[in-house]
């Protein structure tokens, strides 16, 4: 195959498919109780320098409990595959976890505006962007990783600078003779995914909004599941078609109710815009970020104490109502935006 162009971005997370098969061959298929604390899961499965990806969608179904614990344990030098990184990557950068990022979407908070924390880190050189990619591109890297092939051909990114700064290559398609983009597969070292429910063996059921977790879970070298609820294995077997991630892909299961807070958990609770707003405000400066970490991460002993600090069960019930369209949205960042006059 003739190589027509090569991206200059750094290749991360790629493994020779045979090396990946060998890795996979050593993993257990046993149905064993995989429950443990978030402390133990992070200590056991996350290593400094790992290539990491988070399930969900940046601020939807995010394993926040895992992020806070990684910050507490002072994990360092992670390379983040920033597939729609929103609140997850921003807090991770603020917590000092990340030194390199492959960017599909990062340093933004969608309608809320740009993320000052992540942006400052890149502009000051503290965090290095090593390659660019698109959202479909990232997700297809995981598809390749799950399929056990070295690359996925696609027609996206062609002709753009996104491709020129990616780790993809352009070749001549042997059939159509047209240029086609080859995305290198990815098998991240560690992946955290927050799910609505699973059993103690890690068999996970979803209620939609899977995004790219199907591919990512299967591409992961180590996979930690945090879950709203642990259910009996019988329930899994009664409706096996609801299983999105079978347990043998899973290394650890951690039960954390409201574990995606302040992010959205579809079908359960909506965004806590007050806490996200406080983060956006405080994380504008290094001192503010530190203060926020002291308050919400280092200043609490675990996730339930953190939830208490965020308004406890009363707040959680409000977010549940909000998810069901039964309460109005309270968003300090929005009030500020409108007060400033917005766009006329």
């Amino acid at each position, binding site marked *: 195959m003739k190589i027509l162009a090569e991206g200059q971005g750094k290749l991360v997370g790629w493994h020779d498919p045979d090396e990946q098969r060998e890795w996979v061959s050593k993993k257990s298929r046993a149905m064993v109780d995989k429950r443990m604390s978030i402390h133990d899961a992070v200590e056991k499965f996350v290593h400094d320098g790992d290539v990491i990806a988070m399930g969900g*969608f940046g601020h*939807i179904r995010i394993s926040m409990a895992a992020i806070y614990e990684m910050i507490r344990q002072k994990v360092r030098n992670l390379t983040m595959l920033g597939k*729609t990184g929103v609140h997850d990557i921003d807090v991770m950068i603020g917590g000092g976890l990340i030194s390199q990022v492959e*960017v*599909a*979407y*990062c*340093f*933004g908070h*969608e*309608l*809320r505006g*740009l993320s000052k924390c992540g942006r400052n880190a*890149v*502009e000051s*050189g503290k965090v290095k*962007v090593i390659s*660019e*990619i*698109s*959202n*479909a*591109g990232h*997700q*297809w890297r995981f*598809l390749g990783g799950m399929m056990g092939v070295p690359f996925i051909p*696609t*027609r*996206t*990114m*062609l*002709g*753009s*600078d*996104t491709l020129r*700064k990616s780790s993809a290559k352009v070749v001549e398609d042997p059939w159509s003779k*047209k*240029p086609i983009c080859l995305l290198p597969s990815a098998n991240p070292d560690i992946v955290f995914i927050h799910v609505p429910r699973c059993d103690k063996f890690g068999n996970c059921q979803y209620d*939609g*909004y*899977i*995004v*790219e977790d*199907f*591919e990512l879970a299967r591409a992961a070298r180590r996979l930690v599941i945090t879950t709203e609820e642990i259910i009996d294995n019988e329930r899994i077997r009664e409706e096996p078609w609801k299983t999105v991630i079978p347990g043998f892909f899973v290394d650890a299961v951690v039960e954390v109710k409201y574990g995606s807070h302040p992010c*959205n958990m*579809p*079908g359960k609770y*909506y*965004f806590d815009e007050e806490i996200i707003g406080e983060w956006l405000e405080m994380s504008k400066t290094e001192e503010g970020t530190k203060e926020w970490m002291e308050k919400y991460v280092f200043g609490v002993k675990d996730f339930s104490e953190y939830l208490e600090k965020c308004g406890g069960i009363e707040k959680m019930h409000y977010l549940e109502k909000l*998810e069901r*369209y039964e309460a109005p*949205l309270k*968003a300090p960042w*929005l009030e500020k935006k*409108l007060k400033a*006059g*917005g*766009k*006329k």
Partner: protein
Amino acid sequence: MAELHYTKTHLMAITAAKFLKDEKSVFVGTGLPMIAAMFAQRTHAPNLLLIFEAGSIGPQVKTLPISVGDSRTGYRAISVSVMHDNMSFSQSGWTDYGFLGGAEIDMYGNLNTTYIGEDWNNPKVRLPGSGGGNDVASLSQGFFIIMRQTKRNFVKKVTFITSPGYLSGPGAREAAGLPANGGPLKVITQYGVYGFQPDTKRMYLESLHPGVDVNEINANSSFEIIIPEKYAITPEPTNEEVALLKELDPTGMAIGK
């Protein structure tokens, strides 16, 4: 001057909505594109198929979502699928329209949402990157661009082609391997609506917004926007249209107050 019954943002959103034809599919991004698609669905295009990159297909969105992936995107949807599905069927041609914005644009509709500055390694301003933008620009049958226009962001050369417009001109997309006959259809700003000339792929004035002096078009652009002898005047939104827009975004998240 008398206070108008609409803002420039209202005009942009409503004008954009009118381009979305019924029984077509549109891949929707955060903010104004969402509002425009919701507006179209409630007015002239009840069978407009909304597609969100995180997986939702065919929703009848009730209130403006904060994200293209949050649970609001799935309200009365026909499917909450996965990104692989929605991106793949876009690649195979099922997505008629995309809808994008950008921090910078050039005369061929190339968009930058990656960084501003001299050097990618040391950006002056780091922006979010492609997200699904490049995929929408690459894989949709065509796409609309909605953004505020200033001399600073309508530039001769974008710092970084995050998402491809017509690249360097006619034939460049196909030569790069992008799906045939794609590319930007129109650009909607606070001054007017621009199309792309079929032979040059350069931006030209298609319709001027009411109350705008035609000289403002090029006074607020660093590249020349072609002004043909004949161009239309964009219709003003009606009171009812503005009221509907406010109903769809009651908090003013995307359209302001």
